[in-house]
């Protein structure tokens, strides 16, 4: 009898998306006026996180973990794009989003858009994001998706990763997707 799982590798840590559909559209104008289009990055693995720059805990934790994973990828890191999208268009300009993302790693891409663009994005990606706490001033927080979305080289949405995933585990999984 053949041993079970003999050919199985280490399981992926992410949550597999059963019927991997093509990634929803993600087209926004970057701080320098260049158009970012996720469809143009077929051939690369793309990580997408929807957060906001005033986020004091979860977003910086996620982006720090991304940065560690990217370093662990070494030469392969060029084949992976890390995209932070602000879902707080009232406060985050494309420039702020880019400066924020680059705090963690110079290769990270930070994006924002108009209120209308972000609303369209939320619909397309089937995600929610909304202000919470004391929204009278500028110091409110924003509820946002917990997961990192991972798009495979074929442009299909493949995995979701929980916040707090170990960076070495994320790096291992990303290597398998390359």
């Amino acid at each position, binding site marked *: 009898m053949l041993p079970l799982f003999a050919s199985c590798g280490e399981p992926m840590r992410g949550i597999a998306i059963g019927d991997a559909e093509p990634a929803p559209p993600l087209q926004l104008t970057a701080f320098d006026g260049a158009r970012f289009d996720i469809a143009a990055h077929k051939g690369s693995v793309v990580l997408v996180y929807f957060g906001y720059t005033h986020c004091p805990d979860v977003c*910086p934790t996620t982006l720090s973990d991304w940065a560690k994973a990217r370093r662990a990828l070494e030469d392969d890191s060029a084949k992976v794009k890390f995209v932070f999208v602000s879902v707080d268009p009232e406060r985050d300009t494309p420039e702020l989003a880019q*400066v924020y993302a680059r705090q963690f790693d110079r290769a990270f891409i930070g994006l924002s858009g108009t209120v209308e663009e972000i609303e369209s994005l939320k619909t397309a990606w089937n995600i929610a994001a909304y202000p919470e706490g004391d929204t009278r001033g500028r110091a409110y927080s924003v509820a946002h998706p917990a997961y990192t979305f991972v798009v495979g080289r074929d442009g299909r949405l493949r995995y979701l990763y929980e916040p707090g995933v170990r960076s070495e585990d994320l790096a291992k999984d990303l290597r398998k997707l390359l």
Partner: protein
Amino acid sequence: MKTWQKIFASCCSVLVLTVAACDRAPVVTPVTLTVHNAWARPADSGSSTALYFILANSGHGADTLVGVASTEAEVTELHVSTQRGGMMHMSQVRTLPVPAEDSVTFRPLGAHVMMMRVLRRLTVADTVAATLTFSSGQQVVVRAGVRPN
């Protein structure tokens, strides 16, 4: 400040004093709450960060964290991050029990001191401070070293 106060202040990172009537010796409440391993991530001015640390209570009685303040941010609050239904939420917590002879860990994706819209750029090797106030009257100053992780 009186001489004894200066000496005491220079010896302790946390200071708990109850000064009795002026003609009597001051009563010094034993320090039972201490903070260890405090750190915060870098942040640009106007951006946000969080303080993470271990809060230890060596006393025989429980205490309750009832407030946090800092002059380093527009808003400083005690918060907890929670994940519900695929969403991340951050909620303010008004009080947090600190059991006797135990510790509470403030950590990423959990309880933290939220500092929103910091008033200066916080870079690696800076220190950022906040003061915790407890129901016992004790106050503990958190001095967090700024580092990426």
